């Protein structure tokens, strides 16, 4: 029995959930054992109250995602039946003639909080480990265990929506303020006694055993469905939501619809609608993609699947950062925040100080927003030593070089400063374009040389791409991996190759955008189609941001190295960029404008000259082709990275594409996309695009093989 059932002398039954898995979860075992408990409670004599408690550190974890991703259309009725059973059990629980109190001793997210909502009273331990909320939407799902319906009826539509649509999680104090729970205890051992105290104190209060929505005349806070204010909120809220999702995410749309129905309908009917909602979402590719990548994939990546197993933890104590430019100052900041001693070195003391100033600025912001104390700020700042003196680097166990993208310069820095490393210290190079193996040639210990590719702005971007050169040792890789986790970022590991994974793949998005431009497509349409597939910004706008000038420099370097066009014909892009930069002096946003003109007030508009140069009013490409071209180029490149072993795992490719280059969330990453799109369908579409637009759309061999193997669905 996984539900301990204990009745005390006062007639209070305490159910302590202690399921056989690592956490309490909504699965077959729960259905059976909780069902038995419910049956017993209904026949219990002299019952005065029920306390729901947990023997685990997490109060209750929610649904089993393995079950969810396995749902297929032919099993949908069984799935709904399964939900129906649990919902019926919860309904019986909340309709017991005595108060039912949740004693929340740990995280109660998703199904965990839904169980709490089916209790009359909720008391939580006020501790950092306790989080409450309904994060299902982040996995493309909705809270299908009564969460949408009960939270809407409890808080009202407008108050409930942030929790439902954004999956907002809160600590116990905020939950109390929001009305999500009723009481707090400071000592975890006081939880159950406090719950019992509540039950005894309410012995003569029959309302304490009745849920608000079951009370006669209950009015939903903030207004019911006929309230003009609510009608307005629904109309505006739908538009706001669609603006955010661009119609690419079915889950929040469904949640909003179910919540509105919950305002209108009785609890039981609304619960059925909610079940139909979760069932429908479960079948969507978006949910399968998001669960696969944001739950299973991310757990694997963060769990160290790409880290060498046999190397003991490699903690970074003293970090040298070379170059206090935009990247170096960001690296210094995130490292100091993680408690690492940082030597921030630049050519002059002044530049180094300026680099540290960035941390000061960010920390002051935190202090002014009340998110950090002055003492803590000073403590973090004291960890950063700005310097122009090489010797200050002495004894660093990790040095990250973040100087300009130039091989000679990087070689020189390596030569000059490698000796400052502590014995067995590791050298990391932050580069996005230069091969690690070649950079490591300047090192006397190339096995200690590793690529650590940060994304800009470093303090905001959650990803680090670690590049393994030909000679990089497992220890060096482990060092980079552990350091990345120390600074609370997600590491993906790739093998050395021009452009690695992220830059190479992202480059195809820009390339295809520029190709569309040169074919005569309207630039506004091009960028809007990029956004329509779910990219954060259109390709031309991105090009302006990263600067066409920089691209030109990179091409020059690659030409010197003899690797120009290694991954594909860049003639079209070079023509456009040269026309823009050389002939028209439009190098990008930071060069006074590029494809766009930038006004002082921050607004932007297409540079009119661009239309004269490229736009052809008689060119009408189907929108579906525009969208697929912008997306498929990236997917094809990611598949090529996988088949050529640049990517060491699909999970790294998926997480890397989402966190590093803004691949659309609904795809679950560029590789996961193909799994739900279907390999055979993907190959067929590639061939169509190839026939119409060129062989860069030829399906990669790995996709052709998988299509032949009939490998369609993610596990």
């Amino acid at each position, binding site marked *: 029995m996984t539900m301990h059932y204990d009745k005390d002398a006062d007639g209070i039954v305490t159910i302590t959930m202690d399921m056989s898995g690592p956490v309490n979860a909504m699965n077959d075992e729960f259905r059976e054992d909780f069902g038995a408990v419910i049956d017993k409670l209904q026949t219990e004599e002299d019952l005065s109250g029920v306390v729901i408690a947990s023997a685990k550190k997490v109060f209750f974890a929610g649904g089993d995602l393995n079950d969810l991703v396995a749902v297929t*259309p032919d099993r*949908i*009725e069984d799935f*709904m039946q399964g939900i129906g059973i649990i919902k019926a059990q919860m309904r019986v629980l909340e309709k017991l003639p005595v108060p039912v109190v949740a004693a929340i001793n740990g995280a109660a997210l998703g199904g965990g909080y839904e169980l709490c909502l089916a209790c009359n009273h909720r008391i939580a331990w006020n501790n950092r480990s306790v989080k409450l909320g309904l994060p299902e939407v982040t996995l493309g799902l909705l809270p299908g265990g009564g969460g949408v319906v009960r939270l809407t009826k409890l808080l009202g539509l407008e108050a409930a929506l942030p929790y439902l649509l954004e999956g907002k999680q809160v600590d116990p104090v905020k939950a109390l303020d929001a009305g999500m729970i009723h009481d707090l205890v400071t000592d975890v051992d006081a939880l159950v006694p406090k719950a019992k105290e509540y039950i005894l104190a309410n012995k003569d209060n029959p309302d304490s055993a009745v849920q608000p929505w079951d009370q006669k005349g209950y009015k939903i806070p903030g207004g019911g*469905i*006929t309230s003009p204010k609510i009608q307005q909120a629904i109309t505006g809220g739908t538009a706001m939501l669609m603006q955010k999702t661009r119609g690419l995410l079915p889950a929040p749309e469904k949640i909003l619809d179910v919540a509105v*129905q919950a305002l*209108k*309908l*009785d609890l039981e*009917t609304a619960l*059925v*609608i909610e079940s*139909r909602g979760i*069932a*429908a979402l479960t*079948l969507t590719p978006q949910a399968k993609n998001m669960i696969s990548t944001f739950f299973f994939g991310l757990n694997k990546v963060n769990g160290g699947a790409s880290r060498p197993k046999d190397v003991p933890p490699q903690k970074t104590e003293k970090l040298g950062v070379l170059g206090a430019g935009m990247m170096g100052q960001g690296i210094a900041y995130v490292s100091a925040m993680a408690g690492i001693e940082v030597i921030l070195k630049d050519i002059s003391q002044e530049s180094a100080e300026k680099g540290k100033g960035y941390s000061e600025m960010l920390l002051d912001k935190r202090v002014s927003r009340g998110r950090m104390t002055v003492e803590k700020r000073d403590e973090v700042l004291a960890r950063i030593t700005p310097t122009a003196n090489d010797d200050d680097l002495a004894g660093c166990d990790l040095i990250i070089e973040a100087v300009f993208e130039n091989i000679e310069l990087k070689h020189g820095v390596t030569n000059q400063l490698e000796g400052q490393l502590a014995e067995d210290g590791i050298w990391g190079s932050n580069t996005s374009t230069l091969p690690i193996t070649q950079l490591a040639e300047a090192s006397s210990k190339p096995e200690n040389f590793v690529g650590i590719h940060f994304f800009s702005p470093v303090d905001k971007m959650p990803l680090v791409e670690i590049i393994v050169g030909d000679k990089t040792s497992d220890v060096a890789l482990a060092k980079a991996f552990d350091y990345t986790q120390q600074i609370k970022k997600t590491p993906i590991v790739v093998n050395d190759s021009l452009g690695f994974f992220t830059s190479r793949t992202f480059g195809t998005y820009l390339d295809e955008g520029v190709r569309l431009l040169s074919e005569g497509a309207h630039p506004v349409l091009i960028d809007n189609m990029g956004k329509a597939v779910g990219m954060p910004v259109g390709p031309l706008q991105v090009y302006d941001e990263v600067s066409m000038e920089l691209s030109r420099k990179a091409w020059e370097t690659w030409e010197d190295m003899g690797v120009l066009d290694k991954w594909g014909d860049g003639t079209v892009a070079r023509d456009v960029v040269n026309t823009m930069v050389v002939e028209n002096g439009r190098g990008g946003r930071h060069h006074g404008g590029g494809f766009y003109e930038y006004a002082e007030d921050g607004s932007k508009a297409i540079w009119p000259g661009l239309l004269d140069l490229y736009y052809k009013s008689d060119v009408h490409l189907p929108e579906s082709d525009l969208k697929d071209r912008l997306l498929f180029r990236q997917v094809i490149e990611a598949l090529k990275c996988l088949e050529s072993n640049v990517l060491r795992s699909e999970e790294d490719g998926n997480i890397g594409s989402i966190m590093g280059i803004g691949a659309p969330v609904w795809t679950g990453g560029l590789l996961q996309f193909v799994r739900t799109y279907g390999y055979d369908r993907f190959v067929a579409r590639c061939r169509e695009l190839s026939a119409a637009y060129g062989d860069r759309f030829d399906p990669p061999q790995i996709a052709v093989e998988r299509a032949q193997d009939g490998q369609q669905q993610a596990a």
Partner: protein
Amino acid sequence: MPNTAYIYDAVRTPRSKGKPGGSLHEVKPIDLGAGLLRAIQERHDLDTSYVDDVVFGCVTPIGEQGSDIAKMVVQNADWDESVAGVQLDRFCASGLEAVNIAAQKVASGWEDLVLAGGVECMSRVPMGSNGGPMGSDPAFAAKTGFVPQGIGADTIATLEGWSREDVDRYALESQRRATQARDNGWFDKSVVPVKDESGVTILERDDFIKPDTTMDGLGGLNASFEMIGQFGFDDVILRKYPMLDQVNHVHTPGNSSGIVDGSSAVLIGSEKAGSDLGLTPRGRIVATAVLSTDPIIMLTGPGPAAKKCLEKAGMTKDDIDLWEINEAFASVALRYMKDLDVDHEITNVNGGAIAMGHPLGATGAMLVSVVLDELERRDMKRGMLSLCVGGGMGISTIIERA
């Protein structure tokens, strides 16, 4: 008539209790209607861009049935952007009015393909919640002598001398016939199961019918309109019908039409539409008629409407094989048969709204599929459909197998 208005198909949803707890309570009106449009589209692989208009009856067009629900149903069904939609309200006749207007549009030659039907989710948008002057404008009600329909139904029974047993016996037979038709699958051709978006069936067949109904059970029900009659409505009637000394309140929930959720759709088009789209006509609209009678008793219109319809068609009652009268109340059906001198044997042969329910705006167009199916099953030719209508109106339509 320049063009013949052919019936290319007729479908309806099953009906279910129109209150919380009913099987269709969870379904939005736009989904209930759109399900039928999709069914019509699928059954005929229909190029929806050919459809000129969708005319839908809805008697309580507010809230989620408000603001021209017909057009919203068209969009919700993902029909072609070019298809228009209009909602109309002729009280309980709305569904048949939609059919008649569609037939007139096609017959005039001005449109070629029109979908007619109706939707009414009485569980979600309660009857009467849209208000209106009929009963709630005191000056108007005092001037015109308004009484609730049930009082009118009781008055008909009183005038005709029909007892509680007479109306209950009629109700029992409606239940028996409806049960028999449903259980033998006679409705299956036209009743389209309501499904959710994952394809899971919400309701497959009518579940409002009460097969276990008995005379004893019916007899035990309280008269619905006795109390409000005593408030003064009976007196309004007695002033209009001074030959009566009292109103005999015989109608109960058991012998009145049920409050249900439901929707209906009938595809009506020209011969050209049929040949262009490869559709085979199942029937045609022969004639339509609408008129009004005493607005106080309110429910005596169907007989006169049917006579008018026969006249327009140049027919006599012997040309009609099956008669269908909406069972708003048992006395309405009895009065209809008496007015026209037709036998119960050929009237409402598969029961009616007493057994299956009356989703106000949808019912009229439901009668088309009910009668057409039965004409086909019995290999007969012609049917007359009629409904009583608020304000004393009556409506009729003659349909004929193609």
